[in-house]
């Protein structure tokens, strides 16, 4: 009996140690964000003796947290909703016409585009957005983020839709429903496992984006959360406690989102990803 239990115990201990390794950084950022500067120097990562909550209020105030939160939320919402509509439609038509040479080649173009390094279009895109008056607007940022996510979304969704039986929509067609109605009332609901996953991945991509934002939204009024925190951390690098408070602040919304939606994230990815 004990013979069999030992390896299991060992496994659990090892796993807990690994889990700890994954959690330590979060511990550090919370501890640092609650200490005074002097205490960080004196006691490093030990648990704080006094909680300096004012680090958070100061970081929030100086970094214009509320405003950035609003900008990030707007962009993330626009990007995820547009992608959901546009990509599910496109993927559906591509998946259902995979023997058509035109749709097939469109698919392969998207597939190849997944590989395009951002640097290849960074400069011309910047110039275009400037010419169109979209620089320093949340609209311009959303537009760019949407376009960059399209190839991956289509790649994953098309794979999933291919596994959805055609009987469903054929029944609807026979009932006389048009293409749009068939799609939205019959197909779209069936796609929920994959759309919820891509929705979440898109939300993470939009929320965490740094590279594109850095180029498109430079003015303070339109900066998103990661950008605001970036500038803040840059300015207050000497004041490590404030920098970590800002860091922790910007992580909190993501964590809330993650824990609220994790059933869909991990579950959804496990369900849909490999088929894609």
């Amino acid at each position, binding site marked *: 009996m004990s013979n069999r239990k030992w390896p299991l115990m060992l496994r659990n201990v090892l796993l807990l140690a690994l889990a700890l390794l994954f959690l330590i950084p979060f511990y550090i950022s919370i501890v640092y964000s609650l200490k005074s500067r002097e205490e960080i*120097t004196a006691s490093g990562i030990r648990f704080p003796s006094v909680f300096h909550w004012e680090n958070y209020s100061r970081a929030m105030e100086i970094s214009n947290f509320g405003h950035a939160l609003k900008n990030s939320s707007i962009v993330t919402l626009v990007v995820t909703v547009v992608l959901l509509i546009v990509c599910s439609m496109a993927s559906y038509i591509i998946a259902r016409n995979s023997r058509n040479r035109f749709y097939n080649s469109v698919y392969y173009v998207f597939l190849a585009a997944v590989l395009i390094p951002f640097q290849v279009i*960074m*400069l011309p895109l*910047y*110039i275009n957005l*400037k010419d169109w008056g979209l*620089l*320093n607007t949340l609209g311009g940022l959303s537009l760019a983020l949407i376009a960059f996510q399209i190839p991956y979304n289509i790649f994953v969704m098309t794979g999933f839709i291919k596994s959805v039986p055609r009987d469903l929509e054929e029944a609807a067609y026979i009932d006389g429903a048009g293409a749009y109605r068939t799609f939205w009332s019959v197909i779209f609901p069936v796609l929920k496992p994959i759309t919820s996953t891509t929705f979440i991945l898109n939300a993470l991509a939009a929320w965490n984006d*740094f*590279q594109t934002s*850095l*180029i498109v939204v*430079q*003015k303070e009024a339109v900066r998103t959360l990661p950008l605001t925190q*970036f*500038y803040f*951390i*840059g*300015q207050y*690098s*000497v004041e*490590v406690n404030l*920098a970590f408070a800002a860091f922790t602040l910007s992580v909190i919304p993501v964590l809330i989102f993650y824990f609220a939606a994790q059933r869909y994230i991990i579950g959804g990815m496990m369900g849909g990803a490999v088929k894609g």
Partner: protein
Amino acid sequence: MKKNLSLLAITAVATASLAGCGSTGNDLSSSPASASSSASEKEVTINIFHHLGEEAKRNGLKAITDMTTEKYPNIKFNIQAIDYNSYNNILKTKIAAGDAPDIVFGNPIAYRDMIKAGQILDLTGESFFQELNPSALDEMTIDGKTYGVPLDIGAMGIYYNKDIFQEQGLQIPTTFSELIKVADALQAQKIIPFAHGFKDSWTAQADFQADWYGNVSKFPDFFDKVQDGSQKFADSPEFKASVERYKKRLSYSSGDDLGTDYAKSVQMFAGGKTAMLIEGDWSISEIRKNNPQGNFGFFALPFSETASDNILGISAGDAFMASAQTKHKDEVLKFFDSMNSAEGAKAWSDHSKTISANKNFTISGADPITSDIFEYIQSSRTYSFGKAYTLTGQMDAIFRKFQETVGLDQSANVDKLISHLDTDISRLLK
């Protein structure tokens, strides 16, 4: 930390500087003159943009702006501090976005590209310049036009802990081999000679420059010749010797040299954990913040074996320029006025512990470290390198990368790296 995030910002910046400067430059030329008249009584907010990392200097700046507001109640200030490594990028971004701050921190020599793009206001002939030290003023002048207003005179050299030196019976070294003897003696007593904080790689550059900039006094046109292709780094035995000395100094470890940041290295020195720190004058206030009473001094880095060669390389330190995009030229000039007034200059040097660029500066009551630097200036054992180092843009980047690579890689082959440096520079000359 400083360095890390900074470079990311470049993305933005770069982008901006690019497409930005060219186009915004055109519509700028007309604006400043016309806009300035309207704003005499109305409340005006002046945006100041700087990368002063030291809190003492930030307080000094605050004191000057408060002074200005007191005198001209309609002028208010909005001061923005940016991390050193991202500063240029963010600044260029703002300029490109047509969102330039009115007053910009920086030395004109380092911003010749922006001056060329017409982004910096020509201040030639303004009355406040009469209060300034002529050599500091000369450094602000490019092609006969003055673009910057200096606050202080800076230097890079060696901070030392007088108590440790006394306990160990050590003298201020006057030649390089004496410096090495001092370091060895300290190490033998288990005292760390130099505090190294090279996680921020600019700190390693300061170590190199403290040596080489003193050397440059003998070859004032060295960097000009590098740029016209007539001087190769490999052909300068002095340059190679300077690199070798740099590597020698860096070989005295202070622990995790490459994982320690600037702030921590200053803490180590100020806390008495190391005997010396090779840094610029900007560290005085940081040292004092960590140890207001410490018995510290400053001496020029002895690079030569001839004691009299070892002079201190100095340059105009902190300086401000005005953006050509400003709509409040009059108010900006009023700020410069109070900055250069006797009270303004005193407020700055009191806070920052630096040597004021105001020609009426006196040393009485100054920090002992500052007095040590001032003594070099008064006894003319200085060389003004500000105008000698003329590399900008990619050449500057290449030269700085070289300093990092050669210094931080213990196994680096110096000759090979110097020849690569020459190759890289010559590629740009074509």
